[in-house]
């Protein structure tokens, strides 16, 4: 068979989203790849310019739809820096709790999609089943399963319900057992090791040169986690380890993500304990009225009075489930951000696709791309 280009996407079971991987193959060997993005480009950075600070939160949920709360957190941190607002401590703990639960939810979603890529059908269903527990927990205090609109500049929208801590502990206990089962289903199978060991190798130097972050970087042995290296919210107050592996291959990424979920459970046990014993306000005081409204359904018309408050530039970086996400918010003294710029970790991880795909086989593309965990919403924005 001579060389040929095949389009894997935009409608292809491998893609987990809307993108096109153009692959040049010779027989079954991959010679070259060219990711083609932009099929889900919704112009979020542009329409943010037309929205209030709190209204942009709505878009953040949809930017990365499997890690909505992490992206809300990212944007809120940058906005608060740009607007010179400090949230109360309880709000910070609630945000941490949200982010860690979101990390578990996102990683379970990754697990479900990834095992489906290597042909395991049952764990997909198990993953979706267990993820629903996390979503139910979110639903108990945000009212939504996936798009929460929960965080606000200066705090969070509402406090947690009184039953939250008990439910959260139950979910954590259940998940601890289930992760053992997940490992049995994957690592216990020699076919899994045959498929995933020494596959999609991206060494630490290449990772750093191509801007790859998150579990992919940690799987190459680089111990970088923004929660440790540049603590935001109250991550300096909780105790956890950074998950690292050596292989730089698909198995290593699997191990890193599974370990991260266990560490998230460890963090969550601490934050849930803290939340149980420290009631308090969840919204900063002395906010401008349009920012402080707890349910913040601020229409454009009623609040367009020109106010005079300090300009500023905000920058935040968050260890999102997929890697390092960054936001850059420019505040020019109006109700709308002047410019919002986001850095998506998967954007960088996918841009290095040529480094970790070329030389492998067509059958290896789904596991490798599955281990990258692409979420196209945040790539295209």
């Amino acid at each position, binding site marked *: 068979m001579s060389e040929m280009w095949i389009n894997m996407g935009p409608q292809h079971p491998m893609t987990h989203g809307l993108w096109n991987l153009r692959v040049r193959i010779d027989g079954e060997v991959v010679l070259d790849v060219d990711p083609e993005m932009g099929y889900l480009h919704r112009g979020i950075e542009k329409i943010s310019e037309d929205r209030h600070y709190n209204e942009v939160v709505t878009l953040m949920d949809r930017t990365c739809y499997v890690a909505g709360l992490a992206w809300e957190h990212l944007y809120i941190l940058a906005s608060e820096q740009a607007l010179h607002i400090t949230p109360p401590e309880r709000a910070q703990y609630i945000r941490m709790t949200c982010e860690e639960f979101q990390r578990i939810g996102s990683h379970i979603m990754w697990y479900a999609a990834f*095992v489906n890529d290597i042909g395991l059908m*049952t764990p997909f269903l198990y993953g979706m*089943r267990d993820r629903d527990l996390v979503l139910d927990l979110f639903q108990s205090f945000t009212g939504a399963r996936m798009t929460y609109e929960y965080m606000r500049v200066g705090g969070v929208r509402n406090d947690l319900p009184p039953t939250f801590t008990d439910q959260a502990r139950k979910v954590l206990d259940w998940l601890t057992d289930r992760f053992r089962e997940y490992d049995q289903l994957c690592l216990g*199978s020699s076919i*899994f090791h*045959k498929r995933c060991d020494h596959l999609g190798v991206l060494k630490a130097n290449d990772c750093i040169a191509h801007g790859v972050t998150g579990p992919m970087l940690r799987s190459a042995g680089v111990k970088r986690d923004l929660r440790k290296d540049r603590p935001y919210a109250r991550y300096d107050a909780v105790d956890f380890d950074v998950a690292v592996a050596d292989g730089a291959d698909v198995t290593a990424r699997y191990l890193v993500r599974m370990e991260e979920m266990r560490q998230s459970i460890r963090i969550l046990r601490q934050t849930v304990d803290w939340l149980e014993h420290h009631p308090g306000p969840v919204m900063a005081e002395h906010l401008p009225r349009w920012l402080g409204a707890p349910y913040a359904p601020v229409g454009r018309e009623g609040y367009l009075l020109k106010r005079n408050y300090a300009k500023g530039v905000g920058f935040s970086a968050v260890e999102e489930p997929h890697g390092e996400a960054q936001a850059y918010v420019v505040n020019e003294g109006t109700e709308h951000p002047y410019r919002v710029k986001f850095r998506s970790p998967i954007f960088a991880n996918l841009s290095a696709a040529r480094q970790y795909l070329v030389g492998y086989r067509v059958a*290896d593309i789904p596991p490798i791309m599955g281990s990258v965990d692409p979420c196209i919403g945040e790539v295209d924005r």
Partner: protein
Amino acid sequence: MSQATLYSVSYDLSNTIASALGSVLPSGARDLITSSGVVTGFAVVIFAVIILAATMLNTILLIWWERKLLGRFMDRRGAMHVGFAGLLQNFADGFKLFRKDTVKPREADPLGFYFGPTAYMITSLAIFGILPISSGWDTGALPLTLLLALAIFAFAPLFIFVSAWSSNNKYSLMGGMRSAAQMIAYEVPLLLAVVSVVIVAGSFDLNTIVYEQQNYWFWGPLILALIVFVAAMLAEMERIPFDLPEAEAELVEGWNTEYGGMFFAFFMFTDYLRALVGSVLVVLLFFGGWTLPSWVPSVATSWPLAGIFWFMVKTYIVFGVFVWIRASLPRVRTDQLLRVGWNRMIPLGLVSVFVAALLVVAKCVWPFGCLPTP
């Protein structure tokens, strides 16, 4: 009381119809209708129709069985809402696919595009004409039924490749090439496993093979052959972990990507038909066919059609194991699959042939017992 066989049933039916027709026809025509040649020919047609209907019904039931079983493995229920417990779901799918348009890509070759799936289904259906399902329930005319069944079974990669090539789709082509490579590679270990059974039984006739298992079923001493046979059969049936030709993750739907409507129904149907053949062969070769061990009280086997009943039960259990494997294993890669086939399965098959030869020489093996004396 002579046991009713499928052929005797169809012959009686044919005879009844012929004499009924003959009584209303003029004498010249009556002689023709009731002549033994016409009655026999008609009996063969009835015979074929019965087998065809039973096979189709069984295959559709098998799909239902897989869907329900797979659902239970996955902590859900599977088809529920069409018919009782979803029993009619597959009929709905079938009717719908027959009604749907068949879209042929302009660049596709019409001959191969339509011929491939049709021949694939017809050849696979033909296998059931010669497989015995109970004592006397077969054509009974062939001493080499097993060999013939496997020969027809081996046609499939050709037709798959023809249809994949002529759909003019890159994914189809890759799926077709994988399929051909895999099926041909696993043909050899499959036959080696079968040869070990044949050596012990001393015959290619499936009736004889079942008869030879009256003292002990062959899966015990020939466990190696069973493993090789099941692995090779999984590859031939293209089921997980060997479902590379239709590996959903990378090759959209594999070699049937371009097929929709009726021809897609042919493909789906034939896949399960072949799964049925695989399960039936496993039961016949290793699990005593329609017989039960001698310690089972005779009340279990003394009623009519008991042989068919137990045969079906065994077949569905064996297929359940295939579904279990599907629910719990990932998919392997093409090169790994071929390497396992040539490097592991063939040596194992040779060892099992050797074991079978020892078994024949020893005649009696503890704890299984002795082979029946002819």
